[in-house]
């Protein structure tokens, strides 16, 4: 009996040890294979300055339920001067000893012609560790790096009882041969796994096992653990391109979020399994929902600021201005507050969440319907909605509803007026937190960059032009132009920015309206002169109808594109000019009327209307598309090429027969 039990145990033990899930670690310190030495390039990537041969990570829990994270990296350096991987800088959060960096070791390996490997260690004295506020920074440089060198480092970070499992990126700015992440979770904790990316994982396993060599599993004598293993091999580098949000959206990664834990009595407590639970968690959070409770300081401020106002929209605008202008943003984007709102008001400094929550609180105190919206900034990555992940938010904005009209508010900077979002916050969607109806909402710019130009000008027989031009900038165009006006001399702004550095334009008179009222339309009225505007050649006169806002070059010159093309907001440019042509001339050729389309939302319309001695040209350029697939790039490039072409069209005037005769007569009389 006893013997068979023992043998049964032994048998089971053997079985467990030899189970496929307990494979050895894929890398061991300093043990470099011949292939790794010989590898000096990566297929289809002639830009690589380094190749990540191995990126191996492990996360598990020790017997105090601290998360232990280990990483081991081995990199082949192709170009020591250009590669940033030859220097390492790491930060851990030291407040309350939340994170600790330990067991750091690093060395450079070089192999000579005889096949002998020479090792240069990074000495402890060469590693600098410094406190930086609440963080601790560790940095060092790899010695003896030559083209073909292999650098290797490994370290451990202990996260004190935070239940957070670090996320893992499988792709970087250089190609990777082997990226692997293993996570061991004790039975008393449950996590949901969020893999993401375009490359298919070579290995993506999840199973229940007893333990794993090297990864401690003796937590509360539990036998069963969840074991996750993910591997991506030969992953190409993902590098940035213009007109995208962030490369983070295109690199493979995995994230873990805790969904349940077993309490002392063995009962399972669930958390954050649904978006509802996330909403409730934020609502009850001290540094989020609880900050929305009204208090006396806020009430007093609201009363002071909105004294005498009764219209809800006016009140909202006043409160918005107050928060945007009087609280300095400390350049920190955050989804939660770090301080009490009363402290924020005292010190006049706040992070982005504190400002948004303060505004929400003030609007509610003024009896307005306002709710916070959790978002991810554009450069932080697109939000994923399949599962409730909370680490993806890094900013808060405010949704205000007055009589069925919705206003999205982003009080970070005073330059952004009420109703417009900072372009950084335009990332398609957000999570609205309300009492009982929290949900995903779309967050996009209701407002575009809009410029409207109207001109009434006259040409004389020598081709000189003069007249009046009025510009109206609203939406994002208003913000951009106001900022340009404030940065320089007004005349220089007009010539260099509005007229694109035109050397022949003369500003005779100019007046500006609403430069300091960002909510109103920025209006510029000009009297201009442009000598020799039209080219006189023989009996003909060639007139460019576009005095400004001409598309002179294609922003998409490069023939190659990998990623979708993304713009934060739409663009609209309306242009209308009425030109009085000189006596003795008539219209010979007018640009064709046409509608040139790229898509339903992006098109160019030009219309011409002759009216006796005058001609009116109207054009409307609209780009409302904010997201285009990479496959559409070629067509987009061609569309802009054609726009450049269309903007070169000229009006051709010809001397009338009478005036030709007159000049003949004149010449005749001159000859006398």
């Amino acid at each position, binding site marked *: 009996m006893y013997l068979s039990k023992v043998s049964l145990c032994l048998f089971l033990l053997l079985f467990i040890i030899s189970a496929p899930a307990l494979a050895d670690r894929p890398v061991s310190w300093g043990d470099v294979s011949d292939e790794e030495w010989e590898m000096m390039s990566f297929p289809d990537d002639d830009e690589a300055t380094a190749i990540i041969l191995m990126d191996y990570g492990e996360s598990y829990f020790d017997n105090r339920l601290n998360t232990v994270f280990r990483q081991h990296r081995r990199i082949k350096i192709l170009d020591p001067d250009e590669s940033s991987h030859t220097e390492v800088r790491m930060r851990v959060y030291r407040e309350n000893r939340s994170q600790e960096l330990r067991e750091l070791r690093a060395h450079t390996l070089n192999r000579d012609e005889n096949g002998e490997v020479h090792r240069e260690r990074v000495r402890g004295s060469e590693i*600098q560790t410094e406190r930086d506020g609440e963080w601790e920074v560790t940095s060092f440089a790899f010695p003896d*790096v030559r083209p073909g060198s292999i650098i290797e480092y490994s370290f451990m970070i202990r996260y004190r009882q935070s239940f957070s499992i670090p996320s893992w990126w499988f792709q970087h700015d250089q190609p990777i041969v082997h990226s692997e992440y293993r996570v061991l979770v004790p039975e008393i904790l449950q996590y949901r796994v969020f893999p993401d990316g375009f490359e298919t994982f070579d290995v993506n396993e999840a199973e229940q096992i007893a333990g794993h060599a090297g990864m401690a599993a003796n937590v509360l004598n539990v036998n069963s653990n969840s074991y996750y293993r993910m591997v991506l091999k030969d992953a190409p580098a993902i590098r940035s391109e213009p007109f995208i949000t962030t490369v983070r959206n295109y690199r493979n990664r995995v994230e873990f979020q805790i969904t349940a834990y077993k309490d002392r009595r063995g009962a399972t407590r669930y958390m954050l399994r649904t978006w509802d639970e996330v909403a409730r968690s934020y609502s009850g959070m001290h540094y989020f929902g609880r900050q929305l409770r009204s208090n006396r300081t806020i009430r007093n401020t609201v009363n002071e600021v909105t004294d005498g106002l009764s219209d809800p929209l006016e009140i909202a605008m006043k409160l918005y201005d107050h928060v945007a202008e009087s609280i300095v943003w400390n350049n920190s984007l955050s989804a939660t507050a770090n301080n009490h709102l009363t402290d924020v008001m005292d010190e006049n400094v706040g992070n982005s969440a504190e400002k948004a929550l303060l505004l929400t609180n003030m609007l509610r105190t003024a009896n307005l319907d306002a709710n916070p919206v959790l978002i991810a900034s554009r450069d932080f990555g697109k939000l994923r909605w399949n599962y409730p992940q909370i680490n993806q938010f890094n900013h808060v904005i405010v949704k205000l509803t007055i009589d069925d009209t919705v206003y999205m508010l982003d009080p970070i900077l*005073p330059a952004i007026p009420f109703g417009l979002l900072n372009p950084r916050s335009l990332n398609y969607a957000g999570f609205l937190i309300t009492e009982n109806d929290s949900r995903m909402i779309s967050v996009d710019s209701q407002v575009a960059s809009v410029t409207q130009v109207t001109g009434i000008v006259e040409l004389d027989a020598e081709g000189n032009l003069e007249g009046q031009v009025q510009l109206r900038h609203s939406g994002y165009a208003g913000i951009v132009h106001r900022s340009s006006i404030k940065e320089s001399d007004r005349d220089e702004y007009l010539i260099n920015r509005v007229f694109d550095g035109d050397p022949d334009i003369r500003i005779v008179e100019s007046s500006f309206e609403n430069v300091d009222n960002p909510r109103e339309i920025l209006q510029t009225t000009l009297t201009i002169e442009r000598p020799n505007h039209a080219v006189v050649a023989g009996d003909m006169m060639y007139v460019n109808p576009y005095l400004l806002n001409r598309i002179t070059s294609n922003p998409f*010159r490069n023939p190659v594109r990998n990623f979708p093309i993304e713009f934060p907001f739409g663009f609209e440019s309306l242009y209308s000019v009425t030109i009085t042509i000189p006596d003795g001339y008539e219209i010979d050729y007018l640009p064709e009327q046409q509608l040139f389309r790229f898509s339903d939302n992006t098109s160019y319309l030009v219309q011409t209307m002759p009216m006796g001695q005058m001609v009116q040209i109207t054009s409307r350029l609209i780009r409302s598309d904010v997201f285009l697939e990479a496959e559409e790039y070629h067509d987009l490039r061609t569309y802009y090429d054609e726009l450049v072409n269309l903007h070169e069209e000229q009006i051709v005037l010809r001397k009338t027969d009478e005036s030709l005769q007159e000049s003949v007569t004149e010449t005749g009389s001159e000859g006398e």
Partner: protein
Amino acid sequence: MKITLRAIFAVLILLLLQSFERAEAGIKKDDIAITAIPLQLILGADAVVREDVRLLEYQRPGRARMEVRKVITILNSSGRDHGDISLFYNQFSDVSRISGAIYDSSGEQIRRFRNRDAEDRQAFDGISIIQDSRVKTLEMFHSSYPYTIELEYRVDYTGFINLPAFMPQSQNTSVQYSRYEISMPADQNLDYKAINFEQNDPEITRDGNLKKMVWEIRNAPKVKRERFGPAWNNLLPYVLVRSDDFNMDRNTGSLRSWEDFGMWMHDLWDGRNEISDETRQEVAFITEGYEDPHDIIRVIYRYIQNHTRYVSIQLGIGGFQTETAEQTQRNRYGDCKALTNLMHGMLTAAGIESYPALIRSGSRGVVTSPDFVFNSFNHTVVFIPLEQDTVWVETTSSNFPPGYIGSGNANRYALVFNENGGTLVKTPDYKPRDNFQLREATVHLQADGSATAGIQTRYGGARHERIRNFTRLASGPLNRALYDDISLSRFEMNNHEVGAALLEPEAWINLDLDISSYARSMGNRLFFNPNMLASNRGQVAETQERTQAIHQNNSYYDVDEFTYHIPEGYRIETLPGNVILDESFGYFETEYIVDEDSGTLTFRRTLKLIPEILPPEEFGTFRNFVNSIPRHDSAQVVLVKG
């Protein structure tokens, strides 16, 4: 001693008196209120320095203590940065006793700050992987303008070369009262240089065995800077101060002359350029067979460029002492000091006399001048005096040719040092002709407006540095860089070639382009701008009365020569006129040459800019020159059928 009630009482009284003293030293409400500021100081300013008093107690070389007291009224949101306090320190200085307060516009105190409110951070410069500069920060902001901040702190110095400079005024700030008071033992001597100050000399008084020097500024309105005017360095007032002797990390030195300071540097670096036997062998190997010192310099420089990389490290005796040559070789990386030192060591082993030199690189900071010994160096280079010429080497560049020091190091004094001390030597000045961009192109125009173009461009000096970096790029990034660089639209690049000279600061780009639309076809005419690629844009506005000198700092020489083959059946109808603009600071010429036989039109454009400082009266001339160029650059040629 028994602790009696009396003793306690006495202590309490003492404490009370201390705080009473402090209150006395504090500000009166009426003095702070904005109504106490003269109007002329408020106009146009973002902030007014009400009081900026620095009391520097200079005890001896390497030991000083400064008490700072600042009161600044911030008038609007543009002046807000004055409330963003950053107090830097490192292993040779310490900042303590920080205290502050915020007052509203009526002078009412709103908030108080104590030493523990300051955050202690690493002062990461974004580049240096190892550095020991730290900073204590405080955020003094208020919700409504204007408001006033008051800040006091103490700095203890345990090692320094220069004394702290006095810089009472910054951009867009006016000063009501500012004072720099240095007290020192009467037998010590300090040398100083006041710049943009009304009087150079301080008020000097004696008080027992102490000597006091005081500089003051009162009621100074904000300083304006006109476009193309002098750099802020040359407009704002400041005073540089240094002692004769200094002490840094138990190393003493003298600033009495450049020779002396150089001697200190030499002592600091002495013996550190010894290379290992292995490196010695390496030197012998790579220089074998070469006699001409230029060749030897070249191979050693190439060795360092290929075998080491630049890593920014700001440590060690305030960043002055170099790493040993052996260590640098072992690491295969180093900062500018280490790489300079290694090259110096290797040149010595090869029998070539060379010296390290301190230099101030870049366009900011205090300029090194022979008349005032002062440490403002931020970089080192190698100086090699040969029989026929001198060769300077910038060791941190991985691809410069030997002898090219880069525009950031040109035309300034460097402090060369050896066992005899230090000497100021001027680095090469790159003239406009050295910074050239010479272009030759042949363009075949078609009747439909399209064109094919073969363009060869050669770059030199400051113009070539950017192109030399292109040669390192792989084909993908190179393509992108070239497409972005060419200002045409609607073209395809059929062929391209980029190269850089081994020994000269020169590089080139050769291109073959297919331009789908270059000339505009209107009826039976073709219009085109013969100036295909050069583009000087940007207009200078008129000003009423210019008071400041005009600094034309650009230095380059561009020539573009385009030969256009006119399409069959067309002749030239209109040509722009030839233009010459000739001023002391610049030369611009356009020339059109027609060759009927070959059916070509050659367009030649020359633009030369010569660095010069012009008196304000010549602003009109300057403006005309700058504004005319884009006009001539966009002139059109008209071809007509027949």
